[in-house]
């Protein structure tokens, strides 16, 4: 549900993906990395327990307006810390880590403070920084400063790193860190030869730190020395906090896959299909240390190659292989086809996971090129403790032009921009995005008449549209985005199945929008003779959005509902707000007098309000808070 701003590399890969997948023909879920390992929150077995402020719980709720509010439900899956006067301990994993990729969700109540200390020493800050416009090192996503008591007052703290942007959400919502950390390195005598380093930190899918070295433990670290491996520490002495879905991968010391005794045979081949190699004419044979067709072929295209040799595996475990080829290629290990790319697309990518024992395995790669883009064969792998890397190829510098961002600000007036939006369902193609000086922004699908996403802070990067040919045509939000997953805001509710959009989508007419006297768009359409008007706008300087839906008919209706949220889970909180997927709040204004209800639909939930029952004009108004 988080909508990340892709970094440069994924933007480039994105260009390729955009060409081959879309909303209408969703590609299969792409496995491009090995899954992370999970730390169980069924119990506290994974931790060294000090005191009783940490416990396992079920759901957590919090009133975003009340300091340190934590409503804890019994159950498992969540790790919660409620410090008391007697017990306010930090929590250490039994897991010891060096280089680590870490992913964890957290929830923090109003005014609270916690932190994730890599190796118990280097803190990524968790803080209620809701709506802080210019975050500093002590805000969420910051790398906390170091501390030197011997320095003069005011200079004791140093080397703090503020996040690039405040990507944090409101108190009481679930947020997510994704971190790639490298431990410090030491020589044989134990002298440090390189600093600990955060390669990157994403908060709620947005890059907030990149390439940051830390010269030593940050303030309030458990230890003052630096080591190669140490436990992860979750800070428990500052305030209440909850964690869930803690996942990790450890890297280092497992060696690398290598190719040996590689032989190749080049054949003449001209069509777009994987050939029967026995029938082809051989044009060249030899040995090679690379899978790179450029380095051995005399032709530019219209040939096929068989590589065959030995794959040396240093440690047993699951290995992911990923191939990108132009045009077709099949990877076999020990006679099993691991990857198949049929050659019908340009630059297709495919991947698969296979279990390999330590030792030597037989590797065969069948490849063919028929033009369109020239020969290209790249093979990556990832293994137990081994980061994703290239196998058997010289890495070619991409000749793709990397565009500088083209930033659209909305500081003084609001901006409306038409452009594609990438969301979890693929590319949305009929979208208007609106940026406001109040620093809350949203995107609206004009075809599906639905609010699709919203974010705050800086507005958008349109370099994918307005630089060069504009090959992605994407408007990219510049901060962490919530996908509302709301679809058409009206439904005929005879059975809950009626809430599936396709059943009414064809009946929507008269779509479009008008610009009102405040310069804001009001979207409208008709459904079964009902005119629907939809306006979304910032609430003063509160960093929230207000949505006003108006339904007018020339008669009353039965079983017509306003549909205002659609999600995996919708909870009614004690304060009367609805929490949607743990991601944002809805506060319904009492206007139409009808009561909202949560309806289960196909293992999802929809928040509905009956309308037009005994009136021919209904209004629904609610705040969106995140």
């Amino acid at each position: 549900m988080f909508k990340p701003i892709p970094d440069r590399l994924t933007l480039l890969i994105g260009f390729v993906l955009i060409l081959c997948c879309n909303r209408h023909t969703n590609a299969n879920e792409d496995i491009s990395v090995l899954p992370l390992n999970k730390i169980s929150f069924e119990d506290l077995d994974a931790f060294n327990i000090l005191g009783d402020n940490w416990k396992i719980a079920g759901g957590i709720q919090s009133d975003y307006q009340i300091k340190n509010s934590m409503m804890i439900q019994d159950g498992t899956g969540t790790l919660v810390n409620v410090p008391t006067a007697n017990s306010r301990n930090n929590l250490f994993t039994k897991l010891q880590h060096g280089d680590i990729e870490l992913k964890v969700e957290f929830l923090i109540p109003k005014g609270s403070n916690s932190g994730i200390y890599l190796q118990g020493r280097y803190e990524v800050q968790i803080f209620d920084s809701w709506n802080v416009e210019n975050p500093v090192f002590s805000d969420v996503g910051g790398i906390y400063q170091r501390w030197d008591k011997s320095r003069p007052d005011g200079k004791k703290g140093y080397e703090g790193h503020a996040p690039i942007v405040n990507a944090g959400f409101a108190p009481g919502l679930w947020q997510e860190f994704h971190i790639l950390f490298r431990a410090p390195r030491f020589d044989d005598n134990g002298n440090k030869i390189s600093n600990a380093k955060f390669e990157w930190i994403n908060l709620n899918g947005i890059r907030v730190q990149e390439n940051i070295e830390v010269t030593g433990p940050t303030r309030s670290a458990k230890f003052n020395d630096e080591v190669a491996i140490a436990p992860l520490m979750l800070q428990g002495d500052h305030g209440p906090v909850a964690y869930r879905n803690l996942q990790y991968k450890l890297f280092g010391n497992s060696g690398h896959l290598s190719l040996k005794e590689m032989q190749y045979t080049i054949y003449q081949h001209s069509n777009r299909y994987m050939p029967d190699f026995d029938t082809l004419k051989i044009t060249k044979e030899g040995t090679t240390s690379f899978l790179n067709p450029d380095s051995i072929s005399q032709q530019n295209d219209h040939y096929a190659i068989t590589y065959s040799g030995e794959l040396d595996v240093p440690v047993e475990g699951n290995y992911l292989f990923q191939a990108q080829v132009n045009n077709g290629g099949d990877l076999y290990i020990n006679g099993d086809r691991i990857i198949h790319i049929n050659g019908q697309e340009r630059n297709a990518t495919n991947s698969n996971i296979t279990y390999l024992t330590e030792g030597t395995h037989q590797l065969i790669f069948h490849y063919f090129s028929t033009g369109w883009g020239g020969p290209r064969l790249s093979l990556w792998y990832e293994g137990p403790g081994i980061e994703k890397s290239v196998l058997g190829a010289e890495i070619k510098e991409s000749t793709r032009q990397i565009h500088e961002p083209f930033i659209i600000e909305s500081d003084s007036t609001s901006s409306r921009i038409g452009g594609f939006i990438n969301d979890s369902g693929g590319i949305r193609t009929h979208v208007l995005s609106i940026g406001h000086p109040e620093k809350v922004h949203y995107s609206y699908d004009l075809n599906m008449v639905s609010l699709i996403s919203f974010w705050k802070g800086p507005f958008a990067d349109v370099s994918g549209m307005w630089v060069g040919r504009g090959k992605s045509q994407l408007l990219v939000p510049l901060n962490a985005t919530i996908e509302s997953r709301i679809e058409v805001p009206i439904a005929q509710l005879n059975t809950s199945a009626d809430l599936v959009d396709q059943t009414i989508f064809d009946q929507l007419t008269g779509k479009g929008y008008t610009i009102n006297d405040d310069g804001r768009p009001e979207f409208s359409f008709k459904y079964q003779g009902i005119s629907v008007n939809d306006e979304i706008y910032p609430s003063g300087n509160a960093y929230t959005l207000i949505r006003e839906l108006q339904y007018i008919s020339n008669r009353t209706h039965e079983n017509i509902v306003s549909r205002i949220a659609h999600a995996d889970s919708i909870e009614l909180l004690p304060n009367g707000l609805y929490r949607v997927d743990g991601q944002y709040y809805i506060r319904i204004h009492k206007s139409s007098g009808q009561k909202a209800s949560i309806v289960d639909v196909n293992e999802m939930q929809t928040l509905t309000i009956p309308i037009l029952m005994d009136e021919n004009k209904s209004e629904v108004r609610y705040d969106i808070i995140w």
Partner: protein
Amino acid sequence: MKLFFYLLLFLFCFSINLAESSGQSPKESDYYIIDPLPIPEDIIIEAGGLVFNEHGQLAVATRRGELWLISDPGSENPIFERFAQGLHEPLGIAYRNGSYFVTQRGELTRIEDRSNNGTADSFKTIYSWPLTGNYHEYSYGPKLLPNGEMLVTLNLSWTGRGSSLIDWRGWMLRITEDGKMIPWATGLRSPLGFGVNEEGDVFYAENQGDWIASGWITHLEEGDFAGHPEGLKWTDLPSSPIGLSIDDVDDSHGLSIQEQAQNIPELKLPAVWLPHGIMGISTSDILLIENDDQVGPFANQLLVGDQGHSKIMRVSLEKVKGKYQGAVFGFREAFSSGVVRLEWGPDNEIFTGMTSRGWSSTGQNSFGIDRLKWNGVIPFEMHSIIAESNGFTINFTKPVDVETASKIKNYQITSFRYKYHRQYGSPIIDRESKIINRFEIAEDLKSVRLYINEMREGYIYEIKTQDIISNTGTGILHPVGYYTMNYLPESEFSIALEKPHEEMATIIDSSKNVLKMPANWNNGADLTIQLGTLPGLRFDMDEITVEAGSKVALTFSNNDDMLHNFVIVQPETADLVGTHAMKLGLEGAELEYIPTSEEVLFHTSLLKPGEVETIYFVVPEETGNYEYVCTFPGHHLNMRGILKVI
């Protein structure tokens, strides 16, 4: 029927006087003045659509999704007001009764200013079509038809070839104001421009690519299939007016498009081919010349813009056997950016909507609006070319000088055609120089009738009148026309003289294009260079340094979606060679736009999108800053770099 005064001259019975004057050499700017419309520095007008409203304001739809209203657009101080924002790359605009009609990528939209405060406040979807997200899914239009309906065209997607990934890509659609859509015709690839002639017939302009050997304009009627098979994917949808299936079009027999049309009745032949590289490279808008006061005596002819060559061409049409065909001539080049849209202003100026972002153009500005004004002086031109069963009649705008018009060598006719196949573009094939048996000059001196043998249907005829001057001594402004002979008129009588035709062949100097490593390079190349392209007509390296006398293997990968070559030339000669390449005419394609000249040192072949070629050469011994350049017509101004020999 015109009376000819008889002036029969046989081919062998005149002498050639090489020293003869061809009169003063006219320039386009002697007749047609280009005046850029001044645009404030902070306004980006990447024009995708132009239209005038009834207040004389010029409305411009821009690729950044804005609509601008320009008051006093003919003056030196036009006033710009932003009327709307938030559209998605609109590439066309129309206006009627207070409403603007705009084609965005995904829908046709009616835009109005209901509160009358000078900015748009109502955006209503008239009809929306699906998109996959592929950037090449451009949507163009609308053009208003007299009955109130609108025409929209949908570009094919690009997947290494033109693809129709979703409903109606590659089609022209007819859409009513209340949102009813009628699929009208298909076979379209990149139909940015379309227009209506004085008869109300619809023509669209096509861009070279796969299946499309060269630019063309085609008359489209309901149910027509214009040649690119991808759009036929949707003919099984109930509203399709065409039953033809994509599998019915097969290029395995090497037939030309005109030969294929014998088997496929739905296949509509181009009314006029615009030979690629000569008559532009990226055909754009079509504009009807309404009367003789606008740009000279060309009423009812069509103007066709070109983005890459920043120019406008002129087309004369006639109907032969009930079908349109005709000739294309040069008209005016040197606009300041890529010409995308053409619109008449209130004072008979032509306003050009221009953008070259992503596709460089010979006009170096990245966007703009030029105003083209005729100064009232009639240029000496071929007004039109009319097909005869045994030749052509050339109509001139002014009486010809009898002496120069009576020299048969002053007329040169070459016929050729293109391949019809799934590959990108086509070489010129079956080229023949035609022998003119005799000619007649009309009594009013404004027509010349040329008689030739063996007229062939399905060929393009290049007709050159280089040295003919008017009877007042003016040279001809555009001495070349290309007539598309789909159908021969019924013959009145024929004089068949047996004359063998000359087969023409052009030879490329292969020593400059060595594709195999020379046998004596025992240790292989000293240096291997990988060169690619960047979008927007650029090589991915601006400078390459090599050692004098070293052996180089250079691999050029054309990862762009248009044709390119790579040519190494002597220092400071890229402009010269590039300009030379643009003027190669018909031979250009055959020579792969490599001029035969000493300045050219080494080069690759002309590579299609996705093709790769490695050339081997020995760097010159003399050090200096050599240049490399793509000599595909129109590319040399941007697509170049320095080969530093040290």
